[in-house]
C-alpha cells in the first residue's frame, strides 16, 4: 500500500500542473476569476460523481452526508487565496525566486505539521532526498532563467 500512496502523491502533483495549464487556457477566454469559478464548479460536479460511484460500490460511508467541519472554511479561504496570491505575485518575482520561496514555505510548513499535528518523525533519508530534489529544481530553474 505504501507504494500506492507514493504513486498517488506523485500523480496528484502531475494533475495539479495539468489542471493549472487547462485553467490558464480557460482564463484567456473568461478571465482568472471566471476560470477559477468554472474550474471549481466542474470539479464539484465530478466530486459528486466520484461520491455517488464510491457510495454505490460501498467504499464511501454515506452516513456522514451533511456533516461539515469548521476547517472547511479555512480550506475555502486557502483555495481562493492561492489563486489570488499567485496572480498578484508571479509578475513581481523571477521564476527562480518564486520557485525557491514557494519551496521554502511548503517545506517548513509541512515539517511543522508533521511535528505538531501528525506527530510523525521525519527520517534522515527523507531530508537527504528532499535536499537532492530541491537542488535539482533550483539547478533546472537557474538554467532556465
Amino acid at each position, binding site marked *: 500500500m505504501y507504494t500506492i*500512496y*507514493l504513486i498517488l*502523491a*506523485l500523480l496528484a*502533483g*502531475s494533475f*495539479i500542473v*495539468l489542471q*493549472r*495549464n*487547462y485553467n490558464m487556457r480557460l482564463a484567456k*477566454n473568461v*478571465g482568472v*476569476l*471566471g476560470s*477559477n*469559478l*468554472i*474550474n*471549481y*464548479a*466542474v470539479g*464539484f460536479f465530478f466530486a459528486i460523481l*466520484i461520491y455517488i460511484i464510491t457510495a454505490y460500490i460501498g467504499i464511501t460511508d454515506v452516513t*456522514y452526508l451533511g*456533516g461539515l467541519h469548521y476547517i*472547511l472554511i479555512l*480550506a475555502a*479561504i*486557502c*483555495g*481562493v*487565496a*492561492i489563486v489570488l*496570491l499567485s496572480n498578484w*505575485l508571479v509578475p513581481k*518575482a523571477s521564476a527562480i*525566486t*518564486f520557485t525557491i*520561496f*514557494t*519551496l*521554502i*514555505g*511548503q*517545506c*517548513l*510548513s509541512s*515539517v511543522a*505539521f*508533521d511535528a505538531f499535528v*501528525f506527530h510523525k518523525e521525519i527520517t534522515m533519508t*527523507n531530508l537527504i*532526498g*528532499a535536499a*537532492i*530534489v530541491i537542488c*535539482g529544481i533550483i*539547478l533546472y530553474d537557474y*538554467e532556465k532563467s
Partner: protein
Amino acid sequence: MNKKLVYLYIAIAGVTATVLNLSNTIMADSYDVIYGNLAYYAVTVIASFITYFLLKENNTLAKYGSLKNLFGGPLGAFVPIFVALGFINLGAFLTTMLLITGQFLTSFIIDVKGKFDLPKMKMNKMKWFSVVLIIIGTVVMSL
C-alpha cells in the same frame, strides 16, 4: 514593493498551499476521504462564486471556448483525495515533496513536448542532470 516583502508573501503562498492540504486531510480524517473532497468542493465553489461576483473583470463565463478547456475540473477533483491519502499515510513532509516532484516532472514533459501551445524547450546536459537529480532524490526520499 519592498523585495523582502515580496519574498515573504511568496513563502506565505507556499504555506497556504500546505495549510489547504492539511485542512482537506483533517476533513478526510474527521469524516471520510471521498466525502471530505465533496464537502471541500461544495464550500470552495461558493467561495469562488462570491469572489467572482465581488471582483469580476467581465461577465464572460459563457465564452469558455472548447470543452477541452474544462478538463482542469475533473483532474482537480481527484487531487484532494490523493493528497489526503498521502498526508494520512505518508505524512505532510513526504507528500508535499512528492507533490512538488510530480509537478516538476509533468512541467518538464510539457516543456519538452511543447504541449498547451507552449514553445518546445531545448534540452542541454545541465537540464538532464537536474532531472536525473530529482528522480534520484525522489527515490531516496521514499526509502
